[in-house]
Structures are given as structure tokens and as C-alpha cells.
């Protein structure tokens, strides 16, 4: 166990715990955007910075990546910390002014778009990378990654083409903090177009961002829609199930 102080409160946590997790134990709130408890830490948004003092040296660090060390003194709301958080929110607010979570956090901290910035309204993505990590770490598919660098950085399927690996599971959609990834269920008989791609006839599911449209598998008995066929194939192969395993839906199986 490691003992440390956060905002003058002493807390003891197992080795390997991050400052963010330790603070949660004390009910101390630290804002985050790129962090998600089911994913590895990234340290990209810099909202969760805290001030740490160790061996007489004080520095700022991201609390989601910093593993606790014995005797470390942490301050979560100093002026220095607030300055960085405010700047991050100013910058993000101008980048994705329509993102609800950014608006909420900005309001919380009393931040508005600086007069000198020209806001862009074409994208909700704040490049936190949660979708990429979820696809890699939770789903194990690796359908998407960052492309380009710096200000041109984007999340995309390889070569900006339709992802050949995406199983349209939708985890990226659910884990995105700003709602930048959209999914569309195409009902039976309806027609819809995959972005920059062909037209599909429902039942199908489209993940717009990765330019993927997958046909849905239907129950051989009752005809109900189960899930995208490609996704079921992926799962079946991954856990080594018989080829006809998903032919019949759960209700018909009982």
C-alpha cells in the first residue's frame, strides 16, 4: 500500500493506483475527457492535471497517468492547475463549440470562447482517442487509428477508406464523450447510403465515421434481426463456436 496526501487529506491505496483513482476514493472531483475507467490511460486532454510535490520539487502532471508514490503531496485545485484547465477548455470550446460535455465543463469553470479565436463548427471530435483505445482494447478489432499529426490529426479507418475490419459493434459510438461518432440502423426494406460508398438496403447498420455498412443477420426461424452478420462471424471465430451458432435468435432458442 502507498500513502499520499491529496488536498491535505491522507489516503492509502494499492501500488499502481493512479492519482485520479486515489482522488476518486476521497470523493475529490477531477475533470477528465480522454480518460475512461475501462481503458488504458492516455494523458492527452490535460484536463486532469494536478500539482504534485515530491522531494521538494513541485510540478504539474496528468493525474490519469501518474502512479501514486509514497509521500507525494497532491493539490487538485491550485491556480496553476486551474490555469491549465481553463486554457484547455478555451481551446476545445473553440475547436468543438457544439460538444455538450465541453460546454458543460466550460460552464463549470466559467470559461467562454476567447474573443480572438475563430470557432470551428465542422467537427465534434476532440481527438481524445477513446474510440481507438476501445476498439483496440475492448473489442480487439483495431479498425481505426489516428491519421496525420498535429492540427491535421484525425481518427480514421486506414487510408480514410471504408474500414474492412469494423464489425459495427458501436462501442466507439457509446464511448465517445462528445457524440462525434454516429451510427444508423437501417430498417427492413429501407434504403440508405454509406458515406462515400454504396447504397444499402435494410436491415443494415451504418457507422458513418468509418464508412461502413453491414447487413444484419436475421433469425432463420422467426426472421427477427439479430446483429450484423460480419460481427457475429467475428465473435463466432473468436470464441470458436459452431458455424450455425447464430442462425437462430435467443428467443427462438428457448
Amino acid at each position, binding site marked *: 500500500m502507498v500513502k499520499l496526501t491529496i488536498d491535505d487529506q491522507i489516503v492509502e491505496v494499492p501500488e499502481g493506483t493512479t492519482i485520479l483513482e486515489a482522488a476518486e476514493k476521497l470523493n475529490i472531483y477531477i475533470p477528465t475527457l480522454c480518460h475512461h475507467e475501462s481503458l488504458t490511460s492516455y494523458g492527452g486532454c490535460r484536463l486532469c492535471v494536478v500539482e504534485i510535490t515530491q522531494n521538494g520539487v513541485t510540478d504539474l*502532471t496528468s493525474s490519469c497517468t*501518474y502512479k501514486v508514490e509514497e509521500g507525494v503531496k497532491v493539490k487538485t485545485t491550485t491556480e496553476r492547475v486551474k490555469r*491549465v484547465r481553463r486554457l484547455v477548455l478555451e481551446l476545445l470550446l473553440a475547436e468543438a463549440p457544439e460538444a455538450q460535455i465541453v460546454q458543460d465543463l466550460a460552464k463549470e469553470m466559467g470559461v467562454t470562447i476567447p474573443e480572438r479565436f475563430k470557432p470551428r463548427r465542422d467537427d465534434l471530435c476532440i481527438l481524445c482517442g477513446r474510440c481507438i483505445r476501445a476498439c483496440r482494447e475492448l473489442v480487439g478489432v483495431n479498425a481505426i487509428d489516428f491519421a*496525420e*499529426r498535429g492540427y491535421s490529426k484525425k481518427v480514421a479507418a486506414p487510408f480514410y477508406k471504408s474500414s474492412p475490419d469494423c464489425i459495427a459493434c458501436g462501442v466507439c459510438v457509446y464511448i465517445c464523450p462528445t457524440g462525434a461518432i454516429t451510427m444508423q440502423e437501417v430498417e427492413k426494406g429501407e434504403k440508405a447510403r454509406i458515406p462515400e460508398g454504396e447504397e444499402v438496403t435494410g436491415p443494415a447498420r451504418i457507422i458513418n465515421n468509418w464508412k461502413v455498412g453491414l447487413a444484419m443477420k436475421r433469425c432463420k426461424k422467426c426472421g427477427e434481426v439479430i446483429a450484423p452478420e460480419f460481427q457475429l462471424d467475428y465473435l463466432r471465430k473468436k470464441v470458436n463456436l459452431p458455424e450455425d451458432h447464430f442462425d437462430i435468435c435467443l428467443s427462438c432458442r428457448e
Partner: protein
Amino acid sequence: MSSVKDLERLKAEGMNSLFPSKTKIMVGMATCGQAAGAQEVWQAIHQEVKRRKLDVVVKKTGCIGLCQHEPLLDILKPGYPRITYDRVTPEKVSEVLDGLVKGKFKKSIMARIDHEEFLLDDTRTRYSKDKIPAYITSIVPYNRLPFYKKQKRVALRNCGFIDPENIAEYVAKGGYFSLTQVLRGGKPEKVISQIKRSKLRGRGGAGFLTGVKWEVCRNADGDGKYLICNADEGDPGAYMDRSILEGDPHSIIEGMLIGGFAIGANQGYIYVREEYPLAIERLQSALTQAQEEGLLGENILDSGFDFELEICRGAGAFVCGEETALIQSIEGNWGEPKPRPPFPAVSGLWGKPTVINNVETWANVPVIIAKGANWFNGLGTSRSKGTKVFSLVGKVNNIGLVEVPMGISLREIVYEIGGGIPNGRKFKAVQTGGPSGGCIPKNLIDLPVDFDQLKKAGSIMGSGGMIVMDDRTCMVDVAKYFLTFLEDESCGKCVPCRVGIRRMRELLEDITSGRGREGDIEYLQQMAETIKEGSLCGLGKTAPNPVLTTLHYFRDEYEAHIRGKRCPAGVCKPLITYSINPETCTGCGVCLRVCPQEAISGKKKKPHKITSSKCIKCGACFEVCTFGAIVIT
């Protein structure tokens, strides 16, 4: 090879190659030389030698530092000092060889070298013992050229003196004897303590104590440790590492072998950018030769120590010079930095303890072993020991690569070594530490250059870039230039760096275009300070430096742009106008002929005029007017 005896044999072979019994012609064939036309000179020499059936040896060598004078050609005639011709062209080769045949050298010699220093074993070899003609003794010796007078070549000890593609010449200069000494001593702790006592600090940027880093890594748990040489040099106008890689690749290999033995690593990587094809080629040939000689591989010099070294080519991202991003790149991942801790010395490449040092640091290691920590300690200042290589560029007469003891003043570097500012202009500032360094103004010209003093002045040592600026440089424009570079090179992982640098650059764009507003300076300052604090890695943490130092030292220039809508240095196009002073214009018509816009009119021998609506402010007229009649306001 398995013993010192074998090494001595190679040394003898190398001495014969360095100082052959017949005339030797050497051409500086580093990238700087080749860019100036050394390849053509090289071919011309071969053709001429063949045509004249001359019995001479023709050899390549690395960069000797005076890049502005390239291509350099050296003649080593037994019984004569080594003499150097500068700015050689294929046409000039014939003249030089004529002189050689007739026994009378051409008089356009730049300098001579009477003796060659063998730094590692403290010897000097005189080139000449015989009587030599007076016109040769009247040529200035290298060490009395202002460019070389105050230099002390440690990391660059062999560059421009040996053939980088011949291991024997490196050995002749004392190479691989430090390795032998270390392996025979058999005590890694002793090596670490010697490096610690030398107080060598990393030459890559941050200046961390090398010995301490090695010790942490040696003491870290886990086997399978790694060594990395960071050769991802990417600062605009900086080429310290390239020169060592191209001119003396074995010095890095030997340094890494010693480091590997000290920390207990058996595998090392040299991470070089793909944009350095010649460096990679020379390094590869050096690795092959070291392997053939048994200096790399298993049971090196019969000591039981195994070490493998591999080149890893980077795709040229500036951020991959940051150690955690570099490690990601070697692992085959996206070149993005990771937060520290954990530090690489504890958990680095593939999660194993890893020491990562820069090219120049590795090149210093064999010298410290050979000459001792005390010798190294004798150079430099109290907290910055040894020498530092700088790439001296910009508005300075002698552009080149210089190595000086730490603590030398900026004045000595700029005015003595650099020969001052060209075209009678005035010195304004010097940017140290690459794009994320800072601009140091004229009134700090006597600043002693070391890690701490540069930091105190708001800049950094960085890897050793040094860009001299004259009074026709706009400091707001300079800050914008560096930020544009850094915006482009930011990996984009963290928000302050990815978006913050861009926003700062946009503000500077506005200011230099006459759209600056009251409050911009304060906002820039605040944003710069916060980006420095909040960014994830060294790139973002230092990126605001050019803005902060120019704001600190040249605030009046920012104010002139914002309030007066004028650029005092006459650089920012939207804020300047060109006109002709009728008093000084002689009506020669030169400006009229060079103007691409036909914006200049006037009768011959009568004062000319610029029609400002047609003028695109290209500055062509200004450059050609010899009467100073073109006025920028």
C-alpha cells in the same frame, strides 16, 4: 580480433593509411561538402589522376567544420604540411594537380596544418620535417585561423581527419582502445563512476547527468536492458549529429559498446532519420566493419561481453527526438510521447530499462575513458563540463560546425569564431537550442554559454543549434516562423500543444499582417506560459520559448506591429512600403530591370519611382540597388 595486439596491428595499418608514403588527396565528403559540389570535385580528381597517371591516394573525409568554404580539398605530400584548398571546383582541380606535379603549389591555399593532434593518446604527428618553401610557411596554419583558434575538438576529434569508411584510421587515432581498457578492467561500476565523476551532461537537450542515468538503469530490476543512440536530429539549421555520424561513426559505436558494458545491455539501437541517407550509409559500413573485426557480436575481445547494434530508421518526425516518442517509434507504434514517469531508465524500450543518449554524448564517452574524468572536468564551467558542438548559422560570416569549451561567451562565438555579421549589418540576437529555444538579445552577448546560463536567459542549450540574426530580422516574424515549424511537428496528442501552438501562430499571423489588437501581447504571454506548463512532452513544454523570449527582450517590436502597424525591421510585407529616395537615386535603371511587376518607372539618369499599387514587396530592387536609394518604411 581478440586482443590488444590485434588492435595494435590495426592501428599500424591505420597509420599507414592516414600518413601514406605517397601523396594523399583528401576531399571533404560530408553532406555539407557534397551539397557544395564535392561529388563533382571527387570525380574530377579521379579523372585527372587517371589521365596524368599520378601515383597518389585519393580519400574521403568528413566535415572539418568550415562548411561555408566547402568543397575542401587537402593535399598531404610527404615532407610538407597538410594544405587545404577551399571552394574547389572541378575546374580548379586541374590547377591544383598542375601545381602538385610541378612541385609548386598554387597560392590559393586557404590554410595549412603542421601537425595533427591525437587527442586520445596525447600525441601529435608533424606533417613536415623537411625544408619547405617560404610561400608555404607564409600560409596561415589552421589553429591560427580565427575560426579554429578558440575551438576544442573533442566530440569532433576525428571529423575531417580520418576516412569515416575505414575502421583502421579510427583505431589509429586511438579508437577502440577505451573499449579494450574497459573490458579488461571488467568492472561496469567503475565505468559508471568515471562517467559520473566527469559530470558529463546529455548533449541532446535536457542536459541530464549521463552517469546518473546509467546508474539508475544499471540498478533497475530486470534483464534484457537496452541502449539507444538518439540521432533524430531535426532542428532547422542544425547538423551537429549528422556531422559526427558522417565523419566519425565509430566514435558512437565505441561509446555505445562502453555504455552497454556499463549498464549490462547486450542490444543497442541507433535511431537515425531517413533524411540522413549518407549518415545511415556510413554508419552501416562502420557497423559491418566493427562486426568483421569482432568488435560487435559475441564475446567481444575475448571478454565474454556480447553486444549487437542495429540501425533503426525514423520517418523524420521532429517529435521522435523526444525519448518516449522515439521508443514508441522503434517499437513500431505511432510516434507519440508518453507521460513520464516511468522514465526509460526504469521502463523503456519493450518495457525494459533503457538508456537513451544523443550522438554527441556517445561520442564523448571514449574520450572520458581514455583521458579520465579529471581531464574532462578541466574543461567547461562548474556545472557544465566539457565542450559543446554548435551549428553556427544565419547572419554570420563563418557558417559552420564549431566545438568550444562550455562557458565561452556568445561574443567569442559570434564575433571571433563566426567572424561577425556580414554586409556591415548589426548583430541583433542569437537563437540557441533549435526551434524551441529562445532568442538572446545583443545586451546579453557576453553571456557565457552553458546549460544554466542559457536557461537563466530564457533559452535552452538544446542540441546545439545557433542561429545568428542581424538588424534586418523581425523578431515577431522569427517567433512566427518557429511556431509554424512546431505547429507542423506537434504530434497532436495533447490539447495545449496541438491547438495552443496553432492559436498562438494565428495570433502572430494577425500581428504581422497588421491585424494585431490591444491585449494580444498579454494574451500571447499568458497562453505561452500555460502551454509550457500544461503540455505533455518536451516539445509542447518548450514550444512557447521563442514567443516568450522575444516578448521579453523585444516587446517594443510587438508593440510597433500592433499599435503603430509597422515592422521596424522592414520584414513583414503587409506593414512595409518600398519607395525611392530621389536624392540618392542615380537613375541607373538596375532596379527597373529587376522588378518583376514593372512597378518602377523613370528616365535614365533621372530619379526613379515605385508605383505602390503594383509593388508586391519582393525586395528585388532593394537587393540590387548599390546606392542605398531604395527605402523601406
